[in-house]
Each structure stands twice: as C-alpha cells, then as structure tokens.
C-alpha cells in the first residue's frame, strides 16, 4: 500500500506491541505484566487494522483483551500464596540467548525468502470470513465448537471443589 499514514500507523503499532511484550518480561510485578500483556494485545489488534483485517481486530480485542486477560487476572487472584514478583528462573540468560537466536533465524528466513507478493483488497471481511467458515471450512468450524464445549466442561470439572466432586460421585454410585 502506498499510503504513508498506514505505514506510519503500522510501525507505531508494531513498536507499541514489541515494547509492551518486552516489558511483560521486565517488570517486577505480575499484575503490571498482565497489564502490559493487555497493551500488547491491543497493539496487535492495531496491526491487524493496518493490514485490512478489521473483523479479526475487533475479535482480538473482544476475546483476548476482554476475556482471556480477565481469566488470567482471576487466576492470579485465586492463587494468593504464589509469588507475585514476576521472577525469572535461575537459568534465564541461556534462555534469552536461545530466544534471540530463534528471532534471528526467523528474521533471516523472512528477509531472504522470495515471497510471491501481491496486495489483496478485501470487501467486507466479516462477510467473506463468514462465507469461508460455512463453505470450505465448515468442518474445522464444527470441530472448533466441539473443542470449546470440551474445554468449558473440562475447566469446570477441574476446578470443582473436592466435596462437591465427591457428592456428585456419590450420587452416581
């Protein structure tokens, strides 16, 4: 795209996302880390908007920043005696070098490959995604809904209090 404003917006969002992701690793308080994670989610949603994916951007804000972040905050709340200082394990320095190596390899592969480039224009992405979900990709769509039900039931069973589980088993026995 040859629109300078979109390019500027892309780089602003990219820098915001990467800096917040780095701060997730650096801050010394777990709640601050979760808040920087939420900021990086919103930054990624901004990246999607600059790449003409408006539906996916709104879904990202709705699900990641709206629901998954709430899940993480609640699970921090429900584990009060765990350390909240966002500490790194003792072998963090080798992990950092590993991560930097992985980043270098990925960037090198990205820059050196001869991609088949084309700038695609979309109509209403919501409509096109909807058509795609019901025509070619209807089987993954149904499997994803089953996956969500299984995950919901699994999560509920995992956190049931022990006496309620015993009572339920007693009812069945």
């Amino acid at each position, binding site marked *: 795209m040859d629109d300078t404003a979109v390019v500027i917006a892309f780089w602003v969002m990219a820098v915001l996302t990467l800096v917040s992701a780095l701060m997730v690793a650096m801050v010394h308080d777990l709640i601050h880390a979760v808040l920087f994670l939420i900021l990086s989610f919103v930054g990624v949603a901004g990246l999607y908007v600059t790449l003409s994916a408006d539906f996916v951007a709104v879904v990202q804000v709705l699900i990641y920043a*709206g629901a998954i972040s709430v899940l993480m905050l609640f699970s921090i709340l429900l584990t009060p005696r765990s350390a909240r200082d966002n500490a790194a394990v003792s072998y963090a320095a080798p992990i950092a070098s590993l991560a930097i190596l992985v980043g270098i390899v990925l960037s090198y592969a990205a820059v050196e490959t001869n991609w088949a480039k084309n700038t695609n224009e979309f109509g209403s992405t*919501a409509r096109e995604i909807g058509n795609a979900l019901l025509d070619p990709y209807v089987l993954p769509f149904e499997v994803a809904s089953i996956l969500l039900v299984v995950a919901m039931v699994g999560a509920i069973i995992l956190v049931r209090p022990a006496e309620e589980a015993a009572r339920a088993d007693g009812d069945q026995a």
Partner: protein
Amino acid sequence: MTALLLPFLNWYDFDPFRDLYNWLDKQVDPWLVYLISGIIGCTGILTFVGLGALINVWLERRIIGRMQVRRGPNRVGPWGLVQPVADAIKLIQKEVLQPDLADSRLFNLPPILVFIPAMLSFAVFAWAPDMVLANLDVGVLYLLALSSITALAIFIAGWSSNNKYALLGAMRVIAMMISYEVPMVMALLAPVLLVGTMNVSGLVAWQADNGPLAIFVPLSLIVYILSATAELNRTPADIAEAESEIVAGYHTEYSGMKFGLFYAVELVNSLAVSAIMASLFFGGWALFGIDDFIPAWLIFILKIYVFYFGLIWLRGTLPRFRIDQLMGLAWKMLLPLSLINVAVIAVEVLIWEEGDFGSWILAPFALINIALALGLLMLFFRLITAKLYRLPRRVILVRDIQVPNLPAPQAAVALQPPAATP
C-alpha cells in the same frame, strides 16, 4: 484517493462544511483533508459527550427526585440547572486521597482508562444519512468490544485500591459484566442477521426503508435492555457500587475528580447505551420521513434522550437485585432467550432467502416474533420465579382440621387424699 477516503468522511450534512471540504480537497493533500475532517468530527462528538455528561447529571437528579415525590435540586440556578457545575466544582476542590499501600501507577490509571471506551463508542453512530465519524463495517462488534475493556478498567480500580471491599466489589462487577456480555452479544446478533450487515449506518438505513427493528426482533430489544442495564451497573443491577451494600465497591478509595470521572463515565455510558438502542432498534435518525423538515441529528438526539429517560425511570422505580439473582438472570433466563431468538431469526432469514419472497414477508415475521417474545418472556418469568418447594394451594385454618372422634370425657373423678397407709 478521495474516493477511498470518502466512506470515512461522510459526516458532513451541512452545506458550509461540504463547501469547506471541497475547497480543502483542491488545495492540500488528501491525508491533510482526512486529518482536518477527523478533528472537526471528533470535536463535534466530544462536545456532545461533554454536554451530555453535564445535562445528564441534572436530568437524573431532577427526574429521580420527581419520581420520589420530591423536587430534586432547585437551589443552584433556575430549576437547579447549574447543579452539574456546582457538582464539578465541589469534586475539583476536594482533597485527592490515595491509600498509602495502593499501587500508585495502577491507582491513577482506571479513571482515565474507563473513560476511553465510553467516548470511543460514539464514533460509530449515524447521526444523519451522511453523518458518521467512522463508518466501520464491523460497527456493532466494535461497540461490544468496548464494553469488555470497561470491565478490565473497573477490575484494575478495585485491585489497586488495596482494600478488601473494593476488591470484592470489583470481582462482583467483573463476574456480572462478563456474564451479561454473552446475552448482549447474542441479542445484537439477531438484528444483524436480519439486516445482513454489521454497519450501524447500514442498519439505520434498512430501518428507514422497512420500519424500526424493535417490531421485528422484540426479544432482542428486551434482552438488550436488561443486559445493558447490568453492564452499566445501574439500579436495579448496581450491587457492585451500592453504598448500603459494599461501601461504594470498586470506587471506594477514589476521591475528588477521580470519583467524578467514574460518575461521569456511568452517565456517558448510559448515553451510549441509549444511542445504541435508538440506532439499532428504533430507527436512528429516521422517523417516518420527518427528517426532510427537522435535521436528522436532532431527531437522533431526541430519541437518545427518550431512551435515557427510560433508563432513569428504571433506576428510580426498581429496587436492587442481589448478586446471585443477577447472575441467575443472566445465565438462566437471558442466555436461553437470546439463543432461541437467534435460532428463530436464522430460520426466518433462511425462509426469506430461499423462498425468494419480497419484503412483504417481514410483516408476518414481525407478528410471529412479537407473539413468541411475549410467550417466551411469560414462560421464563414463571420458570425463574418458580418455588423450589411446594406450598399448599390454600391456607389451612386450624378449624378445618378434622378432629378424630374421641369418646366423651368421663365425669371428673374428684381428687381424694391418698388412703392412709397403715
């Protein structure tokens, strides 16, 4: 390039602005035109939001006072009209306290963070046929995503106060808000299914041709009103910030203008919810073609304030629900209702598309939907208030109990002193 930008710039409905736009378009680069028209549009919306926050304070207190058979504020100006200014000055001059152990950076963030989604939600409304600030193709979903961010800001407010009651209030608010998001999303899914677009001005244009969506999806409207009242934390669903319940909940530790921001956000959010109801269910700027004579944005603003009056009416009349009653309402009544609603509307859209009918089929659909809405609501109200134990159908009086026939009592034997023992 201007053709690409035009969909985002169609907020102008006034001839002077249109002339200004055309003149600017010839003079400067397109991106500068875009920026200037964006700034003008944002200024207009912020003016409305600011004035709305001020007027709503007065409206709420005055109308609730009248509903409670008292006068409401009437000292500070004619009919108490300067009361919001007096409130603002009082809040500004208060000492801003911060608990010693509260997380300083996190403590100052929520009053700002909770205002951002409230203001952003005004960007997608269609004030007139050509007047939209951001003509998003996913407008309805955008409005729903903003309410999730509000829940996060409230949680941060409760957490950073270092106060047990604030945290408890924040957890209640989050539990309620995420519970009510699900029926709200599904309730707004039904009109989107019927119309075929998530674009808010597209929905309003459809309603200008075919009539208000409230008669086609009445169950959606009712579910949306109930969910939105709970999302706004207004009475009857304000368990999280009620003073007699939990010492003002998540905004206990906030004083001065920070509390003023929370209060203002509740009013601005109510205005946004009224605007959503007016746009999506009652036609937005369209009112039987009156918008040839009266400016369309004036009709829209009047509709917003009619529904805002409805919200104030709910607040002034109903008592407060308990938190378990509220969660039960969300999961046991509103979610099944909205699911059934989506299923019925989907079947109707299928019949409409496959059968190649014209628009006349919307009328029987509307009648079916209204009848279904009334029937389902009555059924669910019966179910949700059903007693879990049996009471006798009629009070049993003591004298109705049949006494079994006992033999007549014997003649009383006179008491005699015990025989003297030898």
